[in-house]
């Protein structure tokens, strides 16, 4: 089935001159992070009963129906299984009313504040992760398909610049590991291609669910670079670049990673 999806995305590219720019990784070379994981992690992810991420998914399903000010997510959007299908695959996306790029977590908080009249949830809180994981889960199996044209173009270019620039005391760029050396060993780890298609994912190292932003921040910490605070626009830019770079890879949320 993946082949069919990949072929469909490749076909869409061929007819869209806007996407004619060079890919960081050729479509047929894309490898999800799960392919670099051990057999135990892979089996944990593929078994919906054993996958701890589903504790958050089920919580998200409850929160979806809980009202803020008499208005639940469900009151406007209806059944998430239909209305949210494919939505996460298009995020981060440009929001015209605030003239900024919003990732899914920011979109949920925007909806809470402006439509539901309740307070924004803290980044990496269980509630926000439950909701974003639940919404992302509705797109499981669908290929990443962000729009990087038009108003999103500037953010995309900033994200690409961040990805290819050297950072921190180790003076490393994201590209040096994840474009040029993926598949090779870094101490006990195999370097992945650095895709975000499993997130929000359950990280065994963290003993909890975490967002893609947290994962990016962890990488920056690993190369001893300055970490932008959670929700910072430069992280959203990188999320956009990563999603573009992973176009065609199916969404796995909730993924499991070591």
């Amino acid at each position: 089935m993946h082949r069919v999806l990949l072929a469909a995305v490749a076909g869409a590219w061929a007819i869209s001159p806007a996407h004619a720019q060079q890919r960081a990784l050729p479509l047929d070379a894309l490898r999800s992070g799960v392919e670099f994981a051990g057999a135990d992690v892979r089996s944990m992810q593929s078994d919906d009963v054993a996958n701890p991420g589903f504790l958050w998914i089920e919580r998200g399903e409850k929160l979806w129906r809980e009202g803020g000010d008499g208005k639940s997510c469900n009151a406007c959007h209806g059944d998430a299984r239909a209305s949210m299908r494919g939505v996460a695959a298009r995020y981060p996306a440009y929001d015209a009313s605030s003239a900024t790029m919003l990732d899914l977590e920011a979109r949920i908080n925007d909806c809470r504040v402006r439509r539901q009249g309740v307070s924004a949830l803290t980044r990496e809180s269980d509630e926000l992760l439950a909701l974003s994981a639940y919404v992302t889960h509705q797109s499981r199996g669908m290929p990443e398909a962000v729009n990087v044209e038009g108003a999103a173009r500037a953010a995309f270019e900033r994200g690409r610049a961040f990805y290819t620039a050297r950072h921190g005391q180790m003076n490393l760029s994201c590209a040096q590991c994840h474009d040029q050396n993926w598949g090779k060993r870094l101490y006990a780890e195999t370097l992945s291609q650095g895709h975000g298609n499993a997130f929000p994912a359950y990280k065994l190292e963290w003993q909890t669910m975490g967002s893609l932003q947290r994962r990016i921040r962890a990488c920056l910490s690993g190369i001893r670079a300055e970490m932008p605070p959670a929700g910072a626009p430069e992280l959203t830019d990188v999320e956009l670049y990563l999603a573009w770079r992973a176009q065609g890879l199916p969404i796995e949320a909730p993924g499991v990673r070591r």
Partner: protein
Amino acid sequence: MADSRVNVSPEIRRGEPFEVRISIRHAMETGYRTDTVGKSIPRNVIRTFACRYNGEPVFAVRMSSGIAANPYLRFFVTGRESGTLDFEWIDDAGERGVAQAAVKVV
């Protein structure tokens, strides 16, 4: 607390073992960690977990700091008659969680 997921096979044969799986959302704080100002975070793990089949104890665990967060337990129970499995657990803070699953013996 109290968030949990239970999985039991939908059809069970009398006299044959069936698989029970449960995962519980719990931080399983080890007691060995410190917070950002160096203060020790007290241990809070699920201390005991028990499963009853139609009221009769069939499975129990005493846990400690060695069990990872969000424990996932998988065990087998012999099918006898249709009824319920009742799960109960208590953590160091005294919080109690419960869950229930139906057993259908064919």
